[in-house]
């Protein structure tokens, strides 16, 4: 009898928990990109690229036109070797335009094991094919 009474509460609790998952605000800032092609393998934290921070200071065209970053998340195989040669992030992160590559932790700042990709933010998870 007691277990039946308890069982009555299972569906609403399951429903409420699933609602919680649905309405819980995803805290990543809209447009944050996690780069983890190589970081986990190399034993460093994954890179978090915050679009919001960069677009205050640079227009999209600087990275997506001048620097040649593909628009599709995951399409850019960014390696530290390229950065030290002034490619990708290394075009600005060189202690001239912006701080240099020796500040590892400012980019390699994600929780270990994060999946690469774009993190849509609070209200949308981004388009299906990201």
């Amino acid at each position, binding site marked *: 009898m007691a277990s039946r009474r308890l069982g009555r509460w299972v569906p609403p609790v399951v429903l409420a928990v699933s609602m919680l998952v649905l*309405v819980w605000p995803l805290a*990543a800032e809209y447009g944050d990109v996690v780069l983890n092609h190589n970081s986990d393998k190399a034993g460093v934290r994954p890179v*978090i690229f915050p679009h919001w921070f960069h677009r205050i*200071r*640079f227009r999209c*065209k600087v990275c997506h036109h001048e620097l040649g970053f593909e628009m599709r998340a995951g399409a850019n195989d960014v390696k530290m070797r390229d950065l030290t040669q002034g490619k990708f992030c290394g075009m600005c992160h060189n202690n001239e335009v912006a701080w240099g590559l020796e500040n590892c*932790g400012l980019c390699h700042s994600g929780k270990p094991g994060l999946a690469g990709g774009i993190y849509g933010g609070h209200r*949308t998870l981004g*388009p*299906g094919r990201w």
Partner: protein
Amino acid sequence: MARNLVGYLSAITFLAAAVFLVGCDRPGDLESFATKGPPSAEPASVNVPASPPEPVIPWALLAHDNLHDPRNPSLALMQEPAEALSVLSPAQEGNFVNWVAALRSGEISPRTNVYPETKIRVLDLDVLMVDTAAMPVVLFPHRPHTEWLDCSNCHDKIFVAKSGANPVNMFRILQGEFCGQCHGAVSFPLTQCQRCHSVPREQALQAVPK
């Protein structure tokens, strides 16, 4: 059966309310963020007069955003989203910033180029997309797009530079094609229908030559 239903509904309502209350810890987050700043000379008094309720701050602290590793010592050096974004023209979603308005009003002046020889191309040309069923017609303004982007970002990889040559529809946009390559990911989300579907059909028909 009816009693069960009432029980379920009240349980759901109660739990949903609890969820929202728990979810509202963000103003608290921001307080802790504010206290990280220079310590004020006067400690906060208990007898502060009742102020209107704080609006919910939509920007999470980096340490609590489920992405950044709170153990990273460099985290303290980073700018918090709330610090930068709360002073810009507001929007309902995304970064909660109307980036086009922020640029227009001069709140931000992001660099257009790093190489001095790069040609800055801005085009002032509106395109009406009238095949929108019951929705208002879409007005695509090149100007705000080219203030941020270069022509080559969209043409001809994402859009053929020819009117009517692109089979755009909402399904494909929601899949991340066409406009959906940026909108819904970085630029304003696809839930802000009216920002694109902005021209009433009658008005659009007057503007387009027959």
